[in-house]
């Protein structure tokens, strides 16, 4: 166990270090001083309350999609579909939120909109889950396919009536369906940043997911199925049902990620809102190494880089932080046996 942890940490540290090195080289190639840019990146994020708030805001959906991808990975499945699950859920949340009676109190409105998000995400994951469980179709292919369908379906739904005519955004949700910003707690120094109660919600979900995997009957069986479907089938564990459950639950958590931008920030859904968090969740899960604390730290790192890119954009293109993220992902993914197993090893495992 300790051994495994050490190996995981080494890979993570090496990956992050390699990423920063790549960033330094790029910055230097742009004729700027790497140290100065890195300093600006850090002071613009963790160096000021607004920056911290923005990092936390960006980290919120990443944490949830990270948990989503992790849930599937535990079953030996690679959910690439968080992106589409999040988009569909975002539209569903905003549409329901906007159509509630104007004066709906928060105690009624919030549970409704918070419930529709995972339901929509789960519904979008049902198709790949059935394809995998019934026909053995590789979930990487089918979830990518569902992402493209989500793109088209969301666009179509917006154009055909869900959006305010002439725009690509939905009407505002009713006030009772808004998630309060954390500054409502009296953290006035966060003023202006979009971090909301979606953040503590995400942390709770990460913890619940870990408990579910470790303590619940279905969760434990999901993990065992991920380790050896053959042995589980021989002992009459319903392998196909467990795989489907993991994928649908993964979709539900990915759908929940939509509440951060929709209910905590904008108050409506627009084309492209939250885009990228689904794929970002893959990186968060890989870097998080299967531990809830790891997932939180990893979401914070990627949130920092996203916000940091905006901070340094005036001097070097913000895409240099994307390069940094990319290098980290590739390095860590290569070191992650689960990724290799999910992508390559299934055939060999019989």
């Amino acid at each position, binding site marked *: 166990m300790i051994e495994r942890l050490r190996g995981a940490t080494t890979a993570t540290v090496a990956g992050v270090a390699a990423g920063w090195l790549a960033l330094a080289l790029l910055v230097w190639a742009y004729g700027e001083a790497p140290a100065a840019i890195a300093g600006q990146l850090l002071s613009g994020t963790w160096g000021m309350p607004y920056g911290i708030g923005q990092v936390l805001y960006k980290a919120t959906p990443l944490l949830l999609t990270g948990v989503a991808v992790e849930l599937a990975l535990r079953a030996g499945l690679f959910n690439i579909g968080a992106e589409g699950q999040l988009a569909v859920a975002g539209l569903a949340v905003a549409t329901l939120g906007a159509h509630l009676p104007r004066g709906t109190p928060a105690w009624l409105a919030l549970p409704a909109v918070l419930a529709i998000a995972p339901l929509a995400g789960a519904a979008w994951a049902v198709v790949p889950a059935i394809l995998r469980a019934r026909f053995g179709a590789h979930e990487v292919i089918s979830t990518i396919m569902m992402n493209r369908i989500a793109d088209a379906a969301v666009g179509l739904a917006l154009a055909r009536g869900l959006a305010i005519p002439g725009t690509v955004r939905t009407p505002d949700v009713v006030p009772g369906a808004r998630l309060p910003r954390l500054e409502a707690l009296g953290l006035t120094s966060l003023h202006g940043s979009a971090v909301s109660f979606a953040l503590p919600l995400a942390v709770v979900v990460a913890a619940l997911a870990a408990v579910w995997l470790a303590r619940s*009957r279905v969760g434990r069986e999901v993990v*065992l199925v991920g380790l*050896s479907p053959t042995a*589980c089938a*021989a002992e009459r564990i319903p392998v196909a049902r467990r795989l489907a459950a993991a994928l649908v639950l993964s979709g539900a958590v990915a759908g929940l990620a939509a509440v951060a931008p929709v209910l905590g920030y904008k108050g409506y859904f627009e084309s492209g809102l939250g885009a990228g968090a689904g794929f970002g969740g893959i990186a968060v899960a890989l870097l998080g190494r299967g531990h809830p604390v790891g997932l939180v730290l990893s979401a914070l790192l990627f949130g920092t880089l996203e916000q940091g890119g905006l901070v340094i954009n005036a001097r070097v293109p913000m895409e240099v932080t994307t390069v940094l993220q990319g290098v980290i992902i590739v390095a860590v993914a290569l070191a992650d046996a689960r990724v290799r197993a999910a992508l390559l090893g299934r055939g060999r495992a019989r």
Partner: protein
Amino acid sequence: MAALLALERLDKRYGAVHAVADVSLAFEAGRLHAVVGENGAGKSTLLKMAAGVVVPDAGEVVIDGVRLDQHTAREAIARGIGMVQQHFALVGVLSALDNVMLGAEPVRALGRLDVERARARAVAVAREMGVSLPWEAPVETLGVGDRQRLEIVRTLVREARVVILDEPTAVLTPGEAAALYTTLRRLADAGRAVVVVTHHLDEVRDHADTVSVIRRGKLVSSRPMNRRDGEAMAALTRDIMGEGPPPRLERRARQLGEVQLELRDVRRGRALRGVTLRVRAGEIVGVAGVEGNGQRELVRVLAGLEPVDGGVVQAGPVAVVHEDRHAEGLVLAASVRDNLVLGELARFARLGMVDGAALEREARGRLERARVVPPDLDAPAAALSGGNQQKIVVARAVARAERGARVLVLAQPTRGVDLGAARAIHAEIAAAAEAGRAVLLVSADLGELRTLCDRILVMARGRIVTELPPDAPDARIGEAMLGGDAAPGAEARP
């Protein structure tokens, strides 16, 4: 005659498993040499080393007096060693001829393919083998027999003088198998050394010039087949199964109760061709037979992992120890705790959450009873020795039998297990029967069957061919394993 291919003191370990231990063997030109032994005895590893597919830890592969030095498949092929693997390596969408050429394409100037030359060569080889093949047809449209002939053509086009075939008849119908041996005989007569790995003793009896037996990684015997009578075959059976003193076990009289497991004319694909048997409560019934005669499918049917095509299975709840503990018995990366109760989490769940304390008590109890050393529930199953792993699998099945399963089915429960663990497992099996379970024990180990069983059923070609008392002479059992009632040639399996 001098050996064409000589294996000299080959040795190979995979982790703690000594797959091949200091084996020396010589294969002569003009002879058909059969290599036999249980699954996992090391036959395939040995011959893969000969073909350059596996690099030996120690020892030499010598062809024509010169040793291989790189141990790559490329080198072995260049030196005239060809191997037809159990799972064919053909490209389905390409034509038969394309597959023959693949990797050895004759070319004209500027690298253009010389298809005509390739075809002429393939046709010549096929004529020598006495077969014809549809060269233009995509391989995926070919039957399994044609595919195998194609694989042989491939090795011969590359001028193989030693042709190694790993269980070539496993996928063939009896007619095809007979035709295969006709072809192999022609190859031998033309001066090649032909090596065949097989589980079928009747093939050895009918076709081999020499037979070598591998058991637990070691060469047990290697002898010319100049006697093919029952006594010689019994000696061969003994070599394969081992004799030695059977593990000690005090037999106590058991009360036989009602029939708990009954199969009537059960059929499944080509593997089970009408199995009929009954096991009563308190009875241990053994199933003997050369592997690959339907035992594996029988166990899978009893475990409910495969449907039957016909016939009747009547059984109460069944607890099963599967043959392959690494693939089917254990989740290797999971803890000993999880493995001890694999598939039983529902019992420990309240409102969907697992009662960790109850699970811990149960797992601890099973672990202590199985005397796994060290008694560490947190260790991954992969970290345990084979004997301890098997104790876990058996403990789980026995516990399940105590908790309501009326039938206990065990397949090769002590394979690859040290003597101490084997005795402990035997004691558990006997205790389960004394407690009134109906036990079906499928084993390739005659000593084990004699020690434990009340009756021994001999299985051959997907049928129970005879029933013998546990003290029947080896020769009787060996003869029955040849499957008296069937046609010569190999049985097919799906």
